[in-house]
């Protein structure tokens, strides 16, 4: 319909507008839910089809959706053709939920879940330090239940395993000798006790889809 004036109606400032609003995470703000979620660090474990390109699909998804991945490890499982990917991520809560759901949509991803706080976590680090003081290096290595892998005239290489905190502490302790090179695997993890980490490793579960929950707490 046409007229001579064009669009009609009260101007923006003359219109009623409610006082409510949402935060940047799209959550409607009421007195009980004022705060934005802070980033938190957690471990996600996924069973995937061990096919070419699966790692690049997972990593590419994280990169293009700006998910912050601290570390990522991949390895075979007890089921032929299935691999486990363990990821340490740091995101505010809705973000962690998003990572899980987006990854669950990838065709090779069979199952994915977030691990509880009591999950068993470990990583391995190789440290190459200056070899001027072999006895002291040996003592520190012992202290952290490490192993000496290589001793040369100039360098000593040791291996340490443990949870993230222990490795951090150990690396600090070795700094006094002068660390030349360091290689960390990143964390890998399994659920505590008899609890299943995520479904998909028991034979016969191949291809069973899982749908992540939709609550975002």
């Amino acid at each position, binding site marked *: *319909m*046409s*007229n*001579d*004036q*064009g*669009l*009609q*109606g*009260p*101007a*923006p400032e003359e*219109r*009623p*507008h*409610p*006082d*409510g*609003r*949402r*935060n*940047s*995470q*799209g*959550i*409607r703000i009421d007195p009980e839910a004022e705060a934005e979620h802070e980033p938190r660090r957690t471990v996600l474990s996924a069973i995937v*089809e061990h096919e*070419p*390109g699966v790692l*690049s*699909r997972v990593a*590419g*998804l994280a990169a*293009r959706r700006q998910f912050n991945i601290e570390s990522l490890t991949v390895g075979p499982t007890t089921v032929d053709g299935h691999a486990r990917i363990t990821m340490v991520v740091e995101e505010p809560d*809705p973000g962690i*939920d*998003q990572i899980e*759901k*987006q990854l*669950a*949509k*990838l*065709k*090779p*991803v*069979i199952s994915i879940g977030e691990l509880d706080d009591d999950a068993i976590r470990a990583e391995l680090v190789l440290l190459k330090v200056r070899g001027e003081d072999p006895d002291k290096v040996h003592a520190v290595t012992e202290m952290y239940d490490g192993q000496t892998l290589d001793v040369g005239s100039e360098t000593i290489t040791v291996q340490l395993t443990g949870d993230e905190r222990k490795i951090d502490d150990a690396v600090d302790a070795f700094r006094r000798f002068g660390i030349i090179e360091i290689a960390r695997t990143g964390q890998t993890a399994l659920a505590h006790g008899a609890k299943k980490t995520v479904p998909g490793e028991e034979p016969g579960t*191949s*291809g*069973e*889809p899982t*749908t*992540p929950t*939709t*609550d*975002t707490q």
Partner: protein
Amino acid sequence: MSERTASPAETDAPTPADDDPTETDVTSGATSVVRALENAGVETAFGVQGGAIMPIYDALYHSDIRHVTMAHEQGASHAADAYGVVKGDPGVCLATSGPGATNLVTGIADANMDSDAMLALTGQVPSEMVGSDAFQETDTTGVTAPITKHNYFASSSDTVGDVVGEAFALAGEGRPGPTLVDLPKDVSLGETDREPGEARAPATCRPKTDPDSDEVEAAARAIERAEKPLLLFGGGVVKGDATDEARAFATEHQIPVVTTMPGIGTMPEDDALCLSWAGMHGTGYANMAITHTDCLIAVGTRFDDRLTGGIDTFAPEAEVVHIDIDPAEISKNVHADYPVVGDAGRAIEAIDAEMDQTPDAREWREQCLTWKDEYPMDYAAPDDEPLKPQFVVEALDEATPDETVVTSGVGQHQMWAAQYWTFREPRRWVSSHGLGTMGYGLPAAIGARLAADDDETVVCVDGDASFLMTIQELSVAVREDLDITVAILNNEYIGMVRQWQDAFFEGRRMAAGYDWCPQFDKLAEAFGARGWAVDSYEEVPDAIEEALAYDGPSVIDFHVDPAENVYPMVSSGGANGKFALSEDQL
């Protein structure tokens, strides 16, 4: 699709090429690919020939599948996309390796953003040459991984038919989207007599279609107690074929409806409950309703930023019920207070069955009607001024049947088409929403034409700049003798950019003005189509009538007011309820 007859294993002699075979004999990877397409019911495919895809084309030679050779692979992907939108089944496009595949990319990305089901088949250099930077080699699965639901690199002639069948099924499964199979030439040429098996989407990608009862219950309670309930129908209602359930729910509970742009047509736009579409250039009344609702029932939408404006001011008073088949859309952009994961139609029916009462929303409905009166969609069209583009859209709508399919490019003309055409059915508005691909309109009209019934009209409302981006596809429309009418709203500008430059860049019209356009009517004639040029209001009805009456491709070049702007407008990141009605309100 014709019935399958005996499989090659059961026949002694291969069918001669000159016969009219009803099926493809599986003798190679390529023939098993074509057999998989036939098994899936594919009737039409769009593509462009080239070295690495030649074996597939050779296999198509023996098939009943209609192949439409496009002028450019981008056209093939848009045509397949639009074909799928109108038909409701995945569209199929083909291209060779390297530039063929990369030319498809825009259309694949477009389908991905709009959740349109589509299968792309690309040729690839022979397996042993992959990774050597061979002639026309591109890492196609690498390039398209971010813009497909999933893509496949075919590795064996024996299984390639299964892979193609699975990719086709996956494209249409759950939340639809594009899939791609990359076909190395040796895999296509390799011998096999293995029939593709029954095609299913992979087990890891099958969606949850039946909603959880606790989610349904919570949503039902929230809707029952609402005083200002509002339904928001997105593209998911179209893709999920849930229009009937959605309309029935709105009507039964007398809840006003707004749609997203891809959701246009899910509710008849002339229904009293329908407030048309919301968002940046949506109606004032739809944006007012979004702003004031206390319970937004969103179905099949991903809360795109062009819909929401600034998240902090989006539906600020509303509890959000969000129905979606993709759990990843729940609380991605807007927090869902009541998520319901499942098939749109089933979820709506389940909620309806769970509801004990209809929300008491009489006052709210009256308020919505008041907003309709307060902010009418209108434009100034005095006779002594240049032709208004909105007038052209209304005249076209008036002159065409209700079931007309409308495709568009991207820009001002797209917004006017969406604003001033009254849509009453889904799958009739075919546009590039999420990606915003200029040039989508003409190839989309070709795809839509082949998907629509013969007696249905197909119109492409295009812009001059959009039309120039894929104009070569007019040759296809002529060659294939397709009855489509292209209406160019020609303002000799990339008009939306010019509008933004005037509003936000102090009128510095850098690289937005064409000052000169080809004579599109003459150009159309040179292609072998019919052409008209229209400068005044008086010429509009006759040109439209003649173009629609012409049984073949026609182009009307409407020289419209170059100064006309698209309003209402919610500024980028702004509040929906603060939409501007003119530039001075921005």
